[in-house]
């Protein structure tokens, strides 16, 4: 069984936010809900100042604290390592939001349109109608994976091949090679969550 994961090559990210937007389009997330935000910061000072970009997503941890904290068992981990929220079971306690060290879950208390309270036809069709009062998070585009060997939308869209998707269990996969050869690092390893996303400097 594969363990789907991602490698993010920070040296390649140019901060175009294409991944963020592709995710919003693919998943129809309502305003204020971002499954794949990119953080940006200026560091240093002239003449050595530089901008850093850090693309993020849910890290689909092997040991997900959100799943443990959820009182309703609405969060589950598939055999392929993808961590999903079943909004039909979520009671909106936000225990998972408190537990996640990566801020990857968003509680949605209302869904409004981007251009006023009223939803336009696209929004009515795409926004999750059962989503109010529940928690939303990145699915690693499990629907695309289940359809057959597609990459998540953020990976497919990235123009610089900064996000690389693959099977962490397969030592011959591109992600495994990159992690091995370039010392891929997981975020906040001290939290003991074993994320399925690695960063390359």
């Amino acid at each position, binding site marked *: 069984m594969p363990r789907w994961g991602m490698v993010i090559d920070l040296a390649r990210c140019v901060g175009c936010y294409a991944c963020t937007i592709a995710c919003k389009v693919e998943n129809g997330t309502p305003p204020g809900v971002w499954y794949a935000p990119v953080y940006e*910061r200026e560091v240093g000072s002239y003449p050595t100042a530089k901008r850093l970009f850090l693309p993020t997503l849910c890290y689909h941890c092997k040991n997900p604290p959100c799943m443990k*904290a959820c*009182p309703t068992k609405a969060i589950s981990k598939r055999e392929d390592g993808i961590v999903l929220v079943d909004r039909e079971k979520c009671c909106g306690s936000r225990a998972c*939001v408190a537990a996640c060290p990566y801020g990857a879950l968003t509680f949605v208390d209302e869904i409004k349109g981007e251009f006023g309270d009223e939803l336009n036809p696209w929004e009515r069709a795409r926004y999750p109608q059962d989503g109010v009062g529940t928690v939303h998070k990145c699915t690693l585009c499990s629907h695309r994976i289940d359809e057959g060997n597609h990459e998540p939308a953020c990976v497919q869209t990235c123009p610089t091949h900064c996000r690389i998707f693959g099977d962490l269990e397969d030592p011959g996969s591109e992600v495994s090679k990159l992690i091995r050869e370039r010392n891929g690092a997981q975020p906040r390893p001290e939290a003991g969550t074993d994320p399925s996303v690695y960063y390359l400097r």
Partner: protein
Amino acid sequence: MAAVTNPFTAGTWIMEPKPQNFWGVPHTSWFFAMGVGGALFINRVLFGIELGRILGMTVADLLGMILIGIGGLILIGDLGKPLRVLRALLNPRTSWISVGAIADFVFLIFAGLWVIADLEWQGGRPLAGLPWAGNSPLGIAFQVIAAAAAFIVIVYPGLVLAASPSIPFWNTTLIPLQFLSFAFASAVGLALIFALWLPVPPALLTAWASAEILLLAVTLLLFVAHLLQGTASHATAKVAVTRLLKGELHVPFVWGTLIAGLLLPLFLGLYGAYAASPAPGLLALSALLALPGNWLSKYTVIKAGNYAPFL
């Protein structure tokens, strides 16, 4: 824990510690009500602090159940999907909220059944024939079960916070201990307030005051220990401590919790209990100050929580 450096940028954090904003006043009120309610019931079971009787039922038990009921209603009202509350009983193996929700129900059922057997109505006790009435073996079993559930009800909100790996300031067992000691201090404090109207012998009043003083002192020490641990452990927890002591939470924490909610009641309690003969008015004032102090302590600790940067 040693300072954690960002592995991606050799020490520079891209993100700032981010204050949590999903829990606030409702959770504070929920934690407060459940803590005081649970401690009132346990104090009645262990030390016989009844606080009088209404229709034959002890006020401490009734008040404990009402407070825990209110806490439960706040919890349910704060859920995004309140009608799915029973689903929250499904994951006690790993979720403290689930454990607490089960304990709430167990407490309300067993305490309710036990208390109702004491009901006096029109000069009689219509339910005295119930098998668990009074101190029958079944009655004692009901009380033990309810008291155990009450104990869980007091500490589980603290354990919810302490189990969170994401927020370093919360990630300590000192929080459930604070919740425990402040809950019992508040419950004993309520007894001191009720003593203004109840015939309490001076020796018993001094004993209650001594317990109150001890609990307040322990609570104060736990807060000091928490602040010291936060300062010494994790950079993000240190930010939380700074927000409590010097930032936007300074007034409710330093003045509301530490000074008005703990130190002042401690001194008033000491003076009221030992300086002369017990002074019920001063002891009640001491207890009255500790109650909002308890609420504010929870509010400020919850609001001070911030996520550690991970990138």
